[in-house]
């Protein structure tokens, strides 16, 4: 899950003070141009010279996995691929498409409605819902799937009470089969709707209130104005939210795997472990990549179009219409439902299980927590370091090639963990075999799998997947430091290092901490890449929860799941704070 992508893309950042922002941006731009013409020569001679080439090297390195997967799609058909194409490929495609369609309907229903209610109307509990509706983002889809399975399957409390109350026994009554494609649609919709909610809400708030008022002076009621003005104006933002939710949907492995729904991610996993055929696996991944590419294309296009969809400045009169009586109750229920089913019920059930299975919190669990936290922290540090390099390269050296490199390096957020894992393991395994052969030959020493068999592979995969978040956070911090601040420092006779430590670091601290926190949490939640790339016998919370759930020990999986959810709430709080505060990354 990369919920943070919502906030740290500069184009989706809430524009509470749009005009001020653009003014500032223009000021930055013009001062940049001045700097270029005035001190251009000085700049090129400066010690920052290495940053530009460095950015290009990083971008190329990070895109190797994807390039390899794309490369394999031209490799020709292997027998395994032929077999897949004959048997399961059609099912993978249909299931993936049905899943995407279902989730689209689900997240739009849950997200757009609640966003409109909380931005246009006032009713008891509204201010609470504004941020609480984001809480489901804290729960990874596979964890909510485990929880609802425990609740709703044959032996679960719901069906047991139905049998007790009605006296019917197995097969005599109909009950919703949660472990199915529709079940997966519901699970994913419940945790992914906040993407749509957040972007739609920002769009509704950003719309000039005048747009609705104009429509009313032209004779349309509030309701008609919603359909004819508010929704069409928010359409690009809603589309962006939807594509982000769908990226998560195609990336999902844990839910569909647990529910036995055959999609690309489960197929890739099975082909890799079952057939051991990396070419066929990569080709399957490449097919999934086309889905992702379409989503990225739609997302970029809607963000681009959204620029034209802002209507002048906001007026200060953001007056919400007060609701009373049954209307207020209806609105309350509409907002409470996604919150209850997406967070309160599953979190409560997890808490109950964890409390009744207290024996799980032992030394092994402590080791699990230590493994997960240290790994996540290390990954967050690496992503931050790379992001700082790239962001500074872009700032000092804003050429097309550097900007494109940074853009490519931030594309990983759209890539499913499975694809990245396969793309990482293929070249690393090859490299390892070369190293082993060399070491045997030259040193007479068996060095083992140095790269693909250690956390090194994991760290690379995490960096690729979550770098966009770090870059976004760092850039949003860096944008606040106008070049004139640097120049003021330098013109006062200070050295560059002084400017960096005394101006940049204090101003960047908030954004840097945000970047660390969010990558940390996302690494903690990441399942498929960890599952494929982890060293032998190396367990994390996510992997442990997956293993226990796969063994039908759902209650035993609760402590690990609860820990992930608990930590996952932190970025949600950050997100909700920036909703009310306005700017992301502001301390």
């Amino acid at each position: 899950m990369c919920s943070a992508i919502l906030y740290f893309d500069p184009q989706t950042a809430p524009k509470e003070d749009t005009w001020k922002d653009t003014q500032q941006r223009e000021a930055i731009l013009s001062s940049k141009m001045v700097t270029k013409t005035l001190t251009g020569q000085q700049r090129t001679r400066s010690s920052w010279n290495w940053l530009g080439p460095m950015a290009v090297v990083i971008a190329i390195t990070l895109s190797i996995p994807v390039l390899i997967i794309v490369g394999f799609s031209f490799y020709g058909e292997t027998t395994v691929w032929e077999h897949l194409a004959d048997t399961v490929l059609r099912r993978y495609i249909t299931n993936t498409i049905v899943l995407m369609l279902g989730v689209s309907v689900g997240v739009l229903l849950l997200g757009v409605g609640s966003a409109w209610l909380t931005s246009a109307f006032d009713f008891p509990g509204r201010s609470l819902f504004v941020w609480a509706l984001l809480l489901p983002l804290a729960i990874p889809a596979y964890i909510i799937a485990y929880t609802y399975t425990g609740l709703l399957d044959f032996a679960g409390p719901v069906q047991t009470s139905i049998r007790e109350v009605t006296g019917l026994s197995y097969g005599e009554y109909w009950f919703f089969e949660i472990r199915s494609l529709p079940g997966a649609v519901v699970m994913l919709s419940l945790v992914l709707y906040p993407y749509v909610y957040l972007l739609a809400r920002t769009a509704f708030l950003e719309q000039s209130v005048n747009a609705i008022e104009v429509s009313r002076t032209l004779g349309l009621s509030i309701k008609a104005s919603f359909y004819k003005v508010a929704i069409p104006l928010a359409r690009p933002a809603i589309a962006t939210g939807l594509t982000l939710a769908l990226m998560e949907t195609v990336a999902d492995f844990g839910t569909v795997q647990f529910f036995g729904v055959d999609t690309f991610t489960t197929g890739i996993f099975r082909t890799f472990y079952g057939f051991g055929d990396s070419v066929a696996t990569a080709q399957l991944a490449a097919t999934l990549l086309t889905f992702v590419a379409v989503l990225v294309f739609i997302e970029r296009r809607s963000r681009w179009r959204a620029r034209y969809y802002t209507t002048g400045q906001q007026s200060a009169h953001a007056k919400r219409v007060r609701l009373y009586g049954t209307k207020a109750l209806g609105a309350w229920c509409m907002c409470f439902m996604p919150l209850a089913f997406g967070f309160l019920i599953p979190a409560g059930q997890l808490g109950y299980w964890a409390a009744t299975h207290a024996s799980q919190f032992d030394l092994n669990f402590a080791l699990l927590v230590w493994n997960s936290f240290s790994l996540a922290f290390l990954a967050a540090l690496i992503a931050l370091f790379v992001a700082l390099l790239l962001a500074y390269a872009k700032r000092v050296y804003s050429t097309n090639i550097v900007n494109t490199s940074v853009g490519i390096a931030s594309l990983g957020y759209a890539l499913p963990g499975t694809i990245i894992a396969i793309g990482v393991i293929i070249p690393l395994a090859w490299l390892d075999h070369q190293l082993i052969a060399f070491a045997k030959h030259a040193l007479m020493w068996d060095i083992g799998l140095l790269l693909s068999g250690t956390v090194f592979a994991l760290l690379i995969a995490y960096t690729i997947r979550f770098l966009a978040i770090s870059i976004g956070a760092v850039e949003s911090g860096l944008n606040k430091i106008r070049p004139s601040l640097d120049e003021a420092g330098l013109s006062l006779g200070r050295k560059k290092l002084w400017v960096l430590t005394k101006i940049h670091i204090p101003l960047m601290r908030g954004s840097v901490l945000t970047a660390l926190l969010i990558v940390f949490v996302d690494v903690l939640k990441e399942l498929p890449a960890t599952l494929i790339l982890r060293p032998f016998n190396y367990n994390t919370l996510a992997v442990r929860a997956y293993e226990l759930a796969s063994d039908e020990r759902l209650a035993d999986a609760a402590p690990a799941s609860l820990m992930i959810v608990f930590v996952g709430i932190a970025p949600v709080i950050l997100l909700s704070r920036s909703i009310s505060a306005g700017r992301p990354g502001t301390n």
Partner: protein
Amino acid sequence: MPDQNIESLSKTMLSLTDVSIGYGAESVVHNASFTLNAGQIGCLLGPSGCGKSTLLRGIAGFEQIHHGEIRMQSNILSSPLTTVSPELRKIGMVFQDFALFPHLTISENISFGLHRWQNSDRIHRVAQLLHMVGLSELGHRYPHSLSGGEQQRIALARALAPKPKLLLLDEPFSSLDVELRQTLVPEVRQILQQEQISAILVTHDQMEAFAMADQIAVMESGQIHQWDTGYNLYHKPQTRFVADFIGEGEFLQARVIDHLSVDSSLGTLQSAYGHGYNIEDNVEILIRPDDVLHDDDSTLTAKILSKHFRGSHFLYRVMMNNNQRLFCFASSHHNHAIGDEIGVVLDIDHLVMFRRNE
């Protein structure tokens, strides 16, 4: 008599009686009253925060009123008990940021309010309005590709399309540059008159108000100080605020001698009309720059303290022998240096005076 009554009723387009509007306990507009006749253009003029936009939004129906009533012709639009919805008022509005719908073409924007019209009528009306604002060839374009002035004209056309009885304009020129404003203001006035529509404009720019409006309400702190023509606001301000806010001028301390004249630092000044103050009252006299004329032959002289070149004329800040400072207009041929002594003539037609607060 009854005939006259009916006639005056049909002539009144909008009337406000003691209207108060407020957020919560604080009221932003207090006891505002005025009457706008059919075909007239009114204006709410005042510094920012004076409540003019709130009052306009009250007329549009976006703000509820707490006291008084707003009537259009003979129908009540707003009272403390009822508020007719904005969409049912037949009042058009042009917003400060124009608020064109970015997802619709120019033609679609203009026809937005024509949803109950026949298709052919609608097409005809859109073409007519595009022609009227002189942008016939832009119908298929999207708002973001238009310049500020073009967007302004489209916003006007869109508001006029459903033939509202009254048009409200909220600072419609403030986001345009000065040059564009000077060409657009008379153009918009002409369009409004051509459509024979009543309108109310909100602005903080008195030149814009003078150029557009027949009747102007000067507002301050939520109160309407005076509802009058631009000429009267300048020459017959009823409160000291209006005298100070409109145009330039200097207040002179003076004492009333008799029903026509006062004693001031410029000597005895006489008015053409009775002023209605008691003898010995302490008053302030408003002296406009055009009351003090430059005349090289005059024996009365004053020293130039500063000067502003205004193209057709100079506005001099001068000091009389007794240290009294005044503004003085001079034709732009009379270019004098700061510090020069120049001859001045007082040309006071009527005295504008206010009771002095001790």
